[in-house]
């Protein structure tokens, strides 16, 4: 296989034009642009229930990740197995049989018509999968670069994400958003007596039903404008 140096140079130029202060955010935006996608998301985690967003280019990318978590199916989750890129092409004949739950949800979704194509790449700095880089494209016209080339970039981005990890990540907006999801999960654990996995599923289902992002719903739970049980008798202590 050949990795085109042109692609690497284009990626570098694109990367330098990204304005975010956060490296993962810049990598995410540059990747979407270089592969010819409409947006992208970087998630980190080793299992579907413990993965979280590190960067997104926008609302669509975030919702597409939330949706896959909610349905428990999709290219981003499949790519976590590390078996290579996973693609959802709404035009392909077998898509509905490969991704029945996700396709139904996408077809039900009023803002995405037709459903976008999803291209998910495991980020493998070495052998282990650090997370997944998923690009979406509304017109499903196909990526500008081959899957192998995009996969190479995803692995390289994995090295960069790994290098950046922990450096000031406590103040990263995305990490604070992730913390809020965890805090809201804990509150729902206490409200309903559920396991954290089930409490997270409750939050995801609520977000899906109300067409909101998981991060938004979590913020409302943490600031107590949303709760999943009757008020507790216990007062402040």
């Amino acid at each position, binding site marked *: 296989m050949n*990795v085109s140096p042109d692609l690497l140079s284009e990626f570098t130029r694109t*990367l330098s034009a990204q304005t975010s202060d956060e490296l993962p955010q810049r990598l995410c935006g540059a990747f979407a642009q270089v592969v010819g996608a409409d947006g992208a998301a970087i998630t980190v985690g080793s299992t579907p229930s413990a993965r979280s967003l590190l960067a997104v280019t926008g609302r669509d990318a975030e919702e597409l990740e939330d949706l896959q978590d909610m349905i428990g199916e999709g290219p981003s989750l499949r790519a976590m197995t590390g078996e*290579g890129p996973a693609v959802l092409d709404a035009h392909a004949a077998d898509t509905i049989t490969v991704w029945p739950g996700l396709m139904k949800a996408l077809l039900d979704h009023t803002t995405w018509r037709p459903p976008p194509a999803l291209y998910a790449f495991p980020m493998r700095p070495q052998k282990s*999968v650090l997370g997944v880089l998923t690009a979406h494209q509304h017109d499903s016209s196909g990526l500008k670069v081959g899957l192998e080339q995009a996969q190479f970039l995803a692995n390289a981005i994995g090295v960069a994400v790994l290098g950046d990890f922990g450096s000031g990540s406590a103040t990263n907006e995305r990490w604070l958003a992730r913390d809020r999801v965890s805090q809201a999960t804990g509150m729902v*654990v206490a409200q309903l007596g559920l396991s954290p996995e089930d409490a997270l599923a409750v939050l995801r289902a609520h977000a899906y039903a109300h067409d909101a992002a998981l991060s938004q719903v979590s913020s409302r739970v943490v600031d107590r404008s949303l709760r999943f049980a009757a008020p507790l008798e216990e007062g402040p202590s």
Partner: protein
Amino acid sequence: MTHRTSEQAFAAAASGMVHARPVGDILSRLVKDCVEVTGAGAVAILVLDEHERLGLLASSLAAATHLELLQAQDTQGPCVDVISSGRHQSATGSDEMVRRWSSVGAAISEAGFTAVDAYPMSWRGRVLGGLNVFQDGPRPDDDGTGLVCQAFADVATIVLLHSTDIPADEMTDRVHRATAARDLVEQAKGVLSELHSLDIEQAALRLEELAASQQITTADAAQSVVDQARTRRG
């Protein structure tokens, strides 16, 4: 392209470009592109090897090759400083270059360069090398040039790391464990916040108090808080 299994293809991709193309070729191309994009006179990369010796990795011009070898030999110069400090180095004009790097500064000036910059190639706080940018015309006053050069330094770093034996699997595992531990602590704050009507900062303090009073780690205290809450009502 010959047919190969996806497993083979991705094993090759994961091990970087080294097997497809010598890493030196890729870096040579990158420094040439950096010249083209920024309009610099020359760009070169100096790195530290495993024995902490300086070595030239790529150069867009013979004159720059000579200047890098001189820096490696005299252990002084903009690239030497960027590697030792991890910070962007910049000097304009013969006087400043000579004052900072004596004979190396003079050599840069004599080679026809009017200004020099060096950008750190660092990863996880460790500086692996420097990207040296030589100007042969007026220094571009566009702030964007610095960002472009730093991006080239960053991508060169990733390419270099991809071809070397970094313990990426071990680090990936550490990231996953650290993330899971952080999630658990945040969940415990949420539980305490809900049960005792505390805000998140107060809940964090409460968790620390619990850990201190029971003489256990914060992680263990968090686990116990979450475990108790889930069985409380269920």
